[in-house]
């Protein structure tokens, strides 16, 4: 149980935020940040723990978003059922793309390319197909009631996305401690060696892909409920593929809190830049690019990794200085 204590503390602190801060701007910022953290946590399962760097997680975000929106707009399905269906659709997209890509044995650059291509194909299809609203997009009808997954107060939305993020944190923690997680990390470190030891690399990567896609799809479903609008550029655009991989890499790739830390840092930097210079297009993304390169250069294990390294280093120094003092005292 002790392993889950940090998660409980972090979630409790975040849950207390609306008690102290009532600003809608801040709450809106936090909702969007947590949504990106959720999408990033999805990427982190496959990319961070499994070492399969997808450049097209928009495929899952968008599929979840469109499934939720289409079911509500065209078929009048309840939003909560739509939400669950969206996650299932994202997982199914992950299963299909995962089967194709991993059966073909695509790794590294090839895997990055094929995921990117799938996201682009879906974007083009969504920009012409009538069911997705083609170029216009889909508007979900405003209906501020809990049973249609819409809330008058932003606080409720905030608590909902926080709960989803909390679930994703627990999932990563469970993964780390499970046999499946160990197999996945083994595949990341050396796929051929893992296979030689009897790990079924295909099944492990496939499972990680489905879980990863489902989590990122949940972020897409939430997007639709929060903004009540989706179009092909948002759903399948490169922005979400990039933010989904940016957050865990900056925060700490293959760590439980990496995506959350990364999203908080990246989004704060983006908003901070906007405050300083006004809303100039391109500036926030420029900073994201620079931070990404700087983190890989100077802290390849991300901020969480750098923090644990620093703590271990400090502990070691403390130990040696303590034993030195003892030596002197004895001496």
């Amino acid at each position, binding site marked *: 149980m002790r392993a889950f204590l940090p998660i409980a503390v972090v979630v409790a602190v975040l849950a207390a935020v609306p008690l102290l801060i009532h600003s809608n701007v801040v709450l809106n910022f936090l909702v969007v940040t947590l949504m990106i953290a959720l999408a990033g946590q999805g990427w982190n399962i496959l990319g961070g723990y499994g070492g399969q760097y997808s450049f097209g997680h928009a495929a899952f975000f968008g599929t979840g978003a469109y499934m939720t929106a289409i079911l509500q707009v065209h078929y009048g399905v309840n939003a909560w059922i739509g939400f669950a269906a969206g996650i299932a659709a994202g997982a199914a997209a992950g299963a299909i793309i995962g089967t194709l890509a991993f059966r073909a044995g695509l790794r590294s650059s090839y895997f990055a390319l094929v995921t990117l291509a799938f996201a682009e194909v879906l974007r083009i299809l969504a920009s012409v197909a009538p069911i997705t609203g083609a170029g216009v997009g889909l508007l979900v009808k405003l209906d501020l009631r809990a049973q249609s997954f819409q809330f008058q107060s932003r606080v409720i939305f905030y608590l909902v996305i926080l709960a989803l993020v909390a679930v994703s944190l627990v999932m990563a923690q469970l993964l780390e401690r499970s046999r499946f997680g160990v197999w996945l990390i083994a595949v990341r470190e050396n796929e051929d060696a893992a296979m030689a030891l009897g790990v079924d690399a295909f099944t492990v990567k496939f499972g990680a892909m489905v879980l990863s896609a489902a989590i990122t799809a949940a972020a897409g479903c939430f997007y639709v409920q929060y903004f009540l609008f989706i179009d092909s550029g948002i759903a399948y655009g490169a922005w979400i593929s990039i933010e989904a991989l940016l957050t865990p890499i900056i925060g700490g790739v293959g760590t439980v809190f990496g995506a959350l830390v990364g999203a908080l840092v990246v989004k704060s930097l983006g908003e901070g830049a906007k405050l300083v210079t006004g809303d100039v297009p391109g500036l926030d993304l*420029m900073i994201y690019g620079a931070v*990404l*390169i700087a983190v*890989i250069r100077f802290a390849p294990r991300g901020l969480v990794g750098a923090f644990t390294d620093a703590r271990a280093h400090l502990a070691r120094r403390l130990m040696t200085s303590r034993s030195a003092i003892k030596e002197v005292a004895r001496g």
Partner: protein
Amino acid sequence: MLSPVILFTAVLNGLMTGAVYALVALGLTLIYGVLHIINFAHGALLSAALFAAFFAYQKFGLDPYLAALLIAPAFFALGYGLQRFVIGPASHGDDRNMLLVTLGLAVLIENALLYAFHADTRTIDLSYGFKSVDLGFTFLSLPRIISFAAVFAVALLLWLIMALTDTGKAIRAVAKEKLGAELAGIDVAHIYAMTFGLGTACVAIAACLLIPTYYANPKAGDAFVLIAFTIVVLGGMGSVPGALLGGLLIGVVESLAGFYFGESLGQLGIFLIFIVVLLVRPRGLFGVSA
């Protein structure tokens, strides 16, 4: 039913477009062949080069074809510096990190352009921009004929560099066997940077060939690069003849598909080819091994 003349014109136009695709792909495949990574910053560098060619004409009245003689060396230096001082040191010798750094560069460059020049689309007016050549049965745009010829001149030049110069030999040695080349005294970091520089110079020349009939915009390079990915995969990653043939082939496919199904679906056709090739024959049509 369409007349054969119209069809033939579509094929010719496809070949013209395809030649520029091939040049962009050539840069990409060269870098892949040696560094074994896809350079995701390729498109952003193409956009930057389009702006360079645009401003060379706008501010100094330099004809794009002449400007190429300046922009290509400048972008060679830029590419060399990026690999030597940014991508190389930042990636700690890990392929996945290298991919991410090039992606970070792409985001950085593209948005720096957006920040500096906004999203406006800029074009230049050249006296020969709309000139066309009468082939008897159809007309072809003059700038596109020039670019078609120039692409093959560049490919020949590149081949000569690879075949005859010491740097070219060193590049081929590193591509074949990195460790062996290093043991033989080749400075691999330098060769990596040279290769990256050559790939970037290809993009700069492509930009100068494009600007008479195309436009500069922070995202202008993206469209070409997604196509270049397809070409590189189709032709076999690292294969130079594969990139040339693949480029021409994709140009024709796009032209015909656009003709029959409309523009956006023509693009879809390219991506479907891309995915099918990746899944069925990832080493491409001419590649030796994946």
